[in-house]
């Protein structure tokens, strides 16, 4: 990895990197461009510049119903996964219990498992207990599948925290409960917000698990998917562009928050269990 070697190979590497980026992002660029294309989805090159599809989109009530459903599902999924992920992360960080190493891996499992497996098993569970499939089951499914994301994010925040602060709080006469709310929780605030943003985004474009658990009302990705079966419309391109914008900005905020805490916390203990693959997986 000498500097000389690096610079001599730079032109080749740069070209290669550009190709990879093109491969990754060209389809997305096409999607965005065609959402403004005057002659609809067909034909190359795109011709004419129009906002018609966006206009059409904003008049489409059933699509907006799906958007609203997705937002509700995502918001509740955030609440569920944070609510369950926080105690899990606390247990991983500070409790000693038999099988902790196993628990730590099992918490991550839903992240690695194909959505089909998670979806199918949740479906069997809900059917087994006699629950009717609806947005409620979808929400429960998202909440469950994304606990691992919440746990890893919060665990990373806990690892960065100076434990002496909590001891100082106890030392100054605050009991464990007060210490949690006045010291631990404020220290975790950034991690919690970051986790919420990430989970919200992930839930918003989730298909695999949703597909198994959906009832009568569609979430946005499923609405799009069902419309696609009737053929691609530029309207779909338009809504996808909007989702893309929304997701990118959420992820950017998440990333900013995260790097900020990394610089603020001086503890070098970077969480080993952090799923780095997540950072680039969903965009």
């Amino acid at each position, binding site marked *: 990895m000498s500097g000389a070697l690096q610079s001599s190979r730079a032109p080749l590497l740069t070209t290669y990197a550009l190709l990879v980026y093109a491969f990754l992002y060209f389809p997305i660029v096409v999607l965005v461009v065609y959402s403004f294309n005057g002659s609809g989805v067909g034909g190359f090159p795109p011709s004419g510049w129009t906002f018609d599809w966006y206009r059409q989109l904003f008049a489409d009530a059933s699509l907006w119903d799906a958007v609203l459903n997705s937002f509700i599902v995502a918001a509740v999924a955030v609440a569920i996964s944070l609510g369950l992920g926080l105690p899990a992360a606390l247990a991983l960080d500070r409790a000693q219990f038999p099988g902790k190493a196993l628990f730590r891996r099992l918490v991550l499992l839903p992240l690695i498992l194909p959505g089909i497996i998670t979806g199918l098993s949740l479906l069997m569970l809900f059917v087994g207990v006699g629950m009717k499939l609806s947005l409620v089951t979808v929400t429960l499914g998202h909440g469950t599948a994304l606990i691992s994301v919440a746990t890893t994010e919060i665990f990373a925040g806990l690892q960065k925290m100076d434990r002496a*602060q909590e001891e100082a709080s*106890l030392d100054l006469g605050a009991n464990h409960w007060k210490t949690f709310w006045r010291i631990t929780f404020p220290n975790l605030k950034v991690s919690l917000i970051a986790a919420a943003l990430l989970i919200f985004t992930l839930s918003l474009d989730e298909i695999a698990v949703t597909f198994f658990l959906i009832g009568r009302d569609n979430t946005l990705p499923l609405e799009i998917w069902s419309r696609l079966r009737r053929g691609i419309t530029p309207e779909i391109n338009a809504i996808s562009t909007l989702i893309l914008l929304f997701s990118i900005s959420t992820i950017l905020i998440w990333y900013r928050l995260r790097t900020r805490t990394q610089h603020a916390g001086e503890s070098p203990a970077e969480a080993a269990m952090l799923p780095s693959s997540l950072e680039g997986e969903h965009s």
Partner: protein
Amino acid sequence: MNASGSPVPVERGPVEVLLSIQKVEKQFAGRPVLCGISLDVASGEFLTILGESGSGKTTLLRLIAGFEHLDSGEIRMAGERLDQIPAHRREVNTVFQSYAIFPHLSVFENVAYGLRAKSVARAEIPPRVTQALAMVKMSEFSQSAPSRLSGGQQQRVALARALVNRPRVLLLDEPLSALDANLRRQMQVELKSLQREVGITFIFVTHDQEEAMALSDRVALLRAGRLEQVAEPREIYGQPATAYAAQFIGQTNLLRAEVRDGIANAGPMAWPSAGPSGAATFSLRPEAIRLSSAPQGARPAGGTAHFHGRVQNQTFGGAMDLVEIDCGNSHILRARIPSPGPLVGQQEFEFAASDAVRVREGGGS
């Protein structure tokens, strides 16, 4: 120490024992960290727990604070069991090595934290915080965010945050170790005068023997989980109990001698020694060795030991020169001699027999 469990009197005469540590044992994962520590701390005392890293000094402090639980033994405060009370209900406060200032609270709120946690009357809080901040000369930073403070300033806030609660014992865990040398000396002086001013018992942990000497009323020297010696700084320096204590605190020459008929013999040296016969180790401080004015043989005379040796090395040190003396048979003695001028070749030296302090060898593990 005595089996009946009645408080053991402090060595320093009739002072009130505030904190009594009795036969405390602590292990981490089967590894003994503290082995049978018994120590009494007097009210208003400045006690330093001195030891190398890994000697167990921080663990002892954390046991008193309540962050660790002891395996056996007990800690009492004013006669009451302390070790069974949770940390947040102990009348003990800690200044942490990392200061552990709450980053999301202002300096004022950091200091007020303990008062609020203990539900001190609302009206009482501002004046007490203001007073505490004034005490550590941090009044003007009351509304600052901790991230804007230097290490020394954070240290002061940590002190104020602890003292504002008027604890019976203040624990300080190497609070000066992160400061640079100048600031450190200044803080030593301030810490000492602050302690006199508030009259609170300080238990100070450090690995720095000079700091321990400068600050403390008494020093408890800890080695591998055992107390090596507990004494006033002058005593621990002048009358070290063990070879380890003699070497850890200041510099010394360790003389391996053979005691027979009240005379100790070590190579070319001989001096009167009252102790029992047999092999013995003596500590002789470098400044106890003088140039001898009356050249004589190596015979003990009038409680003074004479010997001669070759000056091997001489380092100029201002008021005192460091002289290495080769006494033959690989006996090298280090002496601090006030302005001797250049010394060459064989010289006569002497020391008072009372300056050769018989010490215990070994101890610890």
